[in-house]
């Protein structure tokens, strides 16, 4: 039986957020997910089908409508196959921990607010970064949906696109600065060999700019992705903490208060905690 296993993964090497493993014939892919028309349906694809069979990929699981829903006490990540759990774990890490210990119900709420379902991950995987940016530029009029007939989330696509562009940039940067990590300021021009950024790095930067241009300010996931961008502190002499915290606080506000974000700020920006709280309730 031909089947395709689609696994969600944050590809740390190439910056992809999703990879696909085909066992034989690409023609027999699982059909393109039907587009949802109402936000209340957004959870079906991923959340209602997190069966206990951890050997199955998400797409296969998604077709099993008789799957047992998660119990309330079970976290979203606990119900995933190992590789999918790794993938969401990495997404969680990039999104400041907002997916940490998440339940089905909570994840449903996040999807309703624009966070990605597997359809969104899948969609992103079909395009390279610049292609998706250009595609988004033609689809802004139906925001927050990707198009008028679709329940694909524009905020999810644009944010995932930026996050994978950032992952790609980090990977390229680590070639020159092996210790470079997410969340730290980008090396200044003088720090590069011969005092200028290598062409490979410039290319990664251009991709990131392409992705950044279509991330709006209207949903929490977009603001979280922008906060990651702000951490690079391109034009700042310091770690750009004010702008990072401003993005996080606005996201926090849109999420109705998120303990994981509060925890992140407490740990990484303790001197900005009051500022974060103040902005979160404005």
């Amino acid at each position, binding site marked *: 039986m031909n089947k395709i296993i689609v696994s969600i993964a944050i590809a740390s090497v190439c910056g992809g957020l999703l990879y696909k493993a085909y066992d034989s014939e690409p023609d027999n892919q699982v059909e393109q997910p039907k587009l949802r028309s109402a936000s209340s349906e957004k959870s079906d694809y991923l959340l209602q089908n997190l069966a206990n069979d951890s050997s199955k990929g998400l797409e296969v699981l998604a077709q099993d409508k008789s799957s047992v829903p998660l119990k309330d006490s079970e976290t979203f990540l606990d119900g995933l196959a190992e590789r999918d759990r790794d993938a969401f774990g990495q997404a969680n890490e990039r999104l400041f921990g907002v997916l940490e210990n998440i339940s089905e119900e909570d994840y449903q709420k996040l999807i309703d607010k624009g966070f990605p379902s597997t359809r969104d991950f899948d969609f992103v995987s079909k395009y390279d970064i610049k292609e998706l940016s*250009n595609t988004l530029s*033609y689809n802004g*009029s139906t*925001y927050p949906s990707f198009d008028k007939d679709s329940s694909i989330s524009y905020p999810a696509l644009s944010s995932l696109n930026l996050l994978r562009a950032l992952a790609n940039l980090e990977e390229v940067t680590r070639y020159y600065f092996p210790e470079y990590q997410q969340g730290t300021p980008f090396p200044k021009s003088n720090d590069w060999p011969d005092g200028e950024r290598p062409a490979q790095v410039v290319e990664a*930067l*251009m991709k990131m*700019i*392409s992705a950044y241009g279509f991330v*709006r300010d209207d949903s929490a996931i977009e603001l979280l992705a922008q906060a990651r961008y702000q951490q690079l502190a*391109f034009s700042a002499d310091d770690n750009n903490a004010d702008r990072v915290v401003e993005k996080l606080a606005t996201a926090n506000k849109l999420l109705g208060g998120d303990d994981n974000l509060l925890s992140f700020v407490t740990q990484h920006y303790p001197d900005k905690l009051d500022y974060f709280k103040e902005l979160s309730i404005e």
Partner: protein
Amino acid sequence: MAFLLTSSLFSASEEVITIYGSNLSFAPSDWNVVCYGAACKGSADSVQAAIDEMLRRAVKDFVEEEEIAASFCAALKSSEPSHCESKFGGHNSMSLLYKHSSVWWDFPSATNGCGTGSFFESALSSRLTGTNGFTGDLDEPISGFSFEPACNNHDMCYNGGTGRNGCDGSFYTELQSICSGSHECNDFAKLYSAIVDVFGQEAYNEAALVQECRDFKNDIAKNRCVNMQVAGTGNT
């Protein structure tokens, strides 16, 4: 003694500094200089210090105004930024006229809209090509929304040398204001903002070099040092 007079077009501040040539009430003499750049202010300080030292050694003596001026010009000329002549000069034959070479320094325009002819511009063009609604005009990338004033203000901000982060932040704020809530326009605003964010350092550094030479040229001209021959702070 220094006090702020007014804001200059190209500089954060213009300062008038008085150099005193005597500490004797019956023989007052002083000379005012106008400074834009730090080198000029430093020259004034050093000349004043030299005079003070000289007066300490010869209490009844005093320095003529012309001598103060000559000393100041000599000090100012010796503080010429090393890159100015090579970057903006190229008129050595004119030195036969015994004018300071800064007279012929040719600077790029302080503002140039959203195009610069640099890598920044090529990056912008490259990125915008293929973007929905791009008009092909960097000053008005989307029809009906001119980014040119914001770009010019951003140039001026870089010239002022008060820090990139503030300039880049203000640039995006101004673009958003121009866009007036149009999402399509805001997409372009974000792209422009990211381009200056990522690639603005070179332009900022260049602006600082240009501004340093502008200030020096202004200082030479304002203080009538253009024609003055070099002289030291010798004895009267």
